[in-house]
């Protein structure tokens, strides 16, 4: 039950700045997911919130109270670590009650709380076991149990699912989400997996090289990426990018690709893109914005030779070369051709994106 504010937070290791000024305001009970490539500073930011790393610059406040100088134990936060960090010599119950003991809570209340948390997480039968006797999924639950017994102001998760197999990961993902609905608490969750970020977050924060690239609801990041980096990071398979020039041709605004191919920009986008005419840009289009069937307004038909076909069941991925790059399209399985054959592909230009070639900012 708390607001969490980060004001120009910086972390430097010697001359190297791992976090270069992060500004973020997290609302009460909000579920925020930090996502980004490895080494972009997600964990460092989380650990500064937790108090495990000294804050080199800026301010972190929980519920309006600046916590920069507080010990981790004084911040009223709970953290779930990647490798769970369960105390191996203590039983599950002891693991969960350890922090309550530190608060000198009466024995009876500790037991009641542990029992309640164990029920919530369906680990009531495991209370007497040692962590070494548990499966990965069970350890994960115990780690979460240890976090919820103390009823903290903020939950912190650092890649909690990356040690689980794919199936369990999906299951625990929904479970964490369910837990958050059951016990609404301000949550910061770190992951490098954009699917985890998209499915769990109220708000996704995309980080890159120690800075926030964009923060917003998952759909907003998907539909309106602020930069080429975000566009490429969010969505799977990734958005296709092609170098292009924006040109005015008669009454039309067109994209000229590297091989001279011309794509017409739909009228709805003219007002937005016209000022950038004659600039080198990067044209972005998601695999999902291409289709085997045409007929939609703003669609552009392309004749392509398919190099590779990947049937996924619900959709089929096809790969083809265009203007010196390999592109991926997600099409209806019934339109999928055999590898090596050619087909007509319809690009939904209403779903096109343009980025500044130099800065990568969305236009």
């Amino acid at each position, binding site marked *: 039950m708390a607001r969490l504010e980060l004001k120009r937070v910086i972390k430097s290791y010697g001359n190297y700045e791992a976090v270069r000024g992060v500004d973020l305001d997290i609302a009460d009970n909000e579920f925020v997911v930090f996502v980004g490539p490895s080494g972009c500073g997600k964990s460092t930011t989380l650990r500064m919130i*937790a*108090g*495990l790393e000294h804050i080199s610059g800026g301010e972190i406040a929980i519920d309006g109270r600046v916590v920069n100088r507080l*010990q*981790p*134990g*004084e911040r009223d*936060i*709970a*953290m779930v*670590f*990647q*490798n769970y*960090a*369960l*105390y*191996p*010599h203590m039983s599950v119950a002891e693991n969960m009650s*350890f*922090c309550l003991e*530190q*608060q000198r809570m009466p024995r009876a209340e500790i037991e009641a709380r542990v029992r309640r948390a164990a029920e919530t997480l369906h680990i009531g039968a495991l209370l007497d076991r040692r962590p070494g006797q548990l499966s990965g999924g069970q350890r994960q639950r115990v780690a979460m149990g*240890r976090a919820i017994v*103390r009823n903290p102001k903020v939950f912190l998760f650092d890649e909690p699912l990356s040690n689980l197999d794919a199936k369990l990961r999906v299951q625990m993902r929904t479970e964490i989400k369910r837990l958050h609905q059951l016990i609404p608490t301000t949550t910061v969750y770190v992951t490098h997996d954009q699917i985890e970020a998209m499915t769990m977050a109220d708000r996704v924060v995309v980080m890159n090289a120690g800075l926030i690239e964009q923060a917003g609801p998952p759909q907003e990041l998907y539909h309106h990426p602020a930069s080429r980096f975000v566009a490429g990071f969010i969505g799977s398979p990734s958005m296709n990018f092609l170098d292009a020039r924006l040109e005015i041709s008669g009454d039309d605004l067109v994209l000229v690709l590297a091989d001279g191919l011309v794509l017409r920009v739909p009228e709805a986008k003219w007002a937005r893109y016209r000022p950038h005419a004659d600039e080198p840009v990067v044209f972005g289009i998601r695999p999902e914005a291409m289709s085997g069937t045409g007929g939609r307004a703003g669609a552009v038909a392309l004749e392509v030779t398919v190099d590779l076909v990947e049937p996924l069941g619900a959709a089929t991925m096809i790969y083809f070369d265009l203007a010196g790059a390999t592109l991926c399209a997600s099409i209806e399985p019934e339109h999928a051709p055999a590898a090596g054959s050619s087909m007509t592909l319809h690009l939904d230009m209403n779903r096109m994106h343009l980025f500044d070639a130099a800065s990568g900012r969305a236009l």
Partner: protein
Amino acid sequence: MTLANASKPILRRDEAGGETVRYALFVLVAGLVALFFLMPIVWSIANSFKPAAEALADPVSLVSSAFSLENYRRLEGVGAGWTSYAANSVVVALGTVALTVLVAVPAGYGFSKFRFPGQTLLFVLVMATMMIPFQSILTPLFLILKWLRLQNSLFGLVLIYVTFQLPFSIFMMRNAFDAVPRALIEAARIDGASQWTILRRIMLPIALPGVATVAMFAFLNSWNEFLAALIFLSDQNKFTLPIMLVNVSSGIYGIIDWGALQAGITVTMVPCIVLFLSLQRYYVRGLTAGAVK
């Protein structure tokens, strides 16, 4: 078809037979090796319970005509009596264990979990003292003890043993604490535990095999040590068991009392064996801690 089927069980029986032979061979060889190492111990114990005359006359046989505690009674007559020497040894060994653990645990913790200037140099210096031969510093040690008025004192002897035990012990404890994952300490910090609570409730229990190893080595080394005890203790009442053994074997009336000597050896040996066996599980884990993962 039938032939092929019939041949299968025969083949399996052959394989099983091979297994059995190999296992029997293993048991035989292992048994022989064990016997080889156990024999001196068994022999000492057997002789210690023979009547004194028989131990002297026929030391080789394992079985005796009569069970007798005579040798132990004779040992009582050596100097201040074996029980008081055993008591001295116990005091020295336990003192060494206590003091070694008390210093090595915090030192190892410091070297493992904190960073301070000159840390590596200090650690290397401590380790380097392991290479100093004991004999070469006997004289300075003697002078220092004299200056401290601790010559001919069990406590002085304990201090010397602890000094020689520390480098290895600090090394062991540092490794033991290194093996405790950093995330556990961080989790404990988030749980609101103080430094002291973290050491006591998280680190020490996990590093316990290391502590057991350190304690065992301190016990065995101080229990068996001879030279320092001989040099630094001059009062007969303060001797430890190894010195008593020499006094027995050098003879009270000019001849070696074999029975009493075997009794003395038994008394000296049994605590070591019991300790080793009871701590064996920890000890093996302690030595390999940090080696894996």
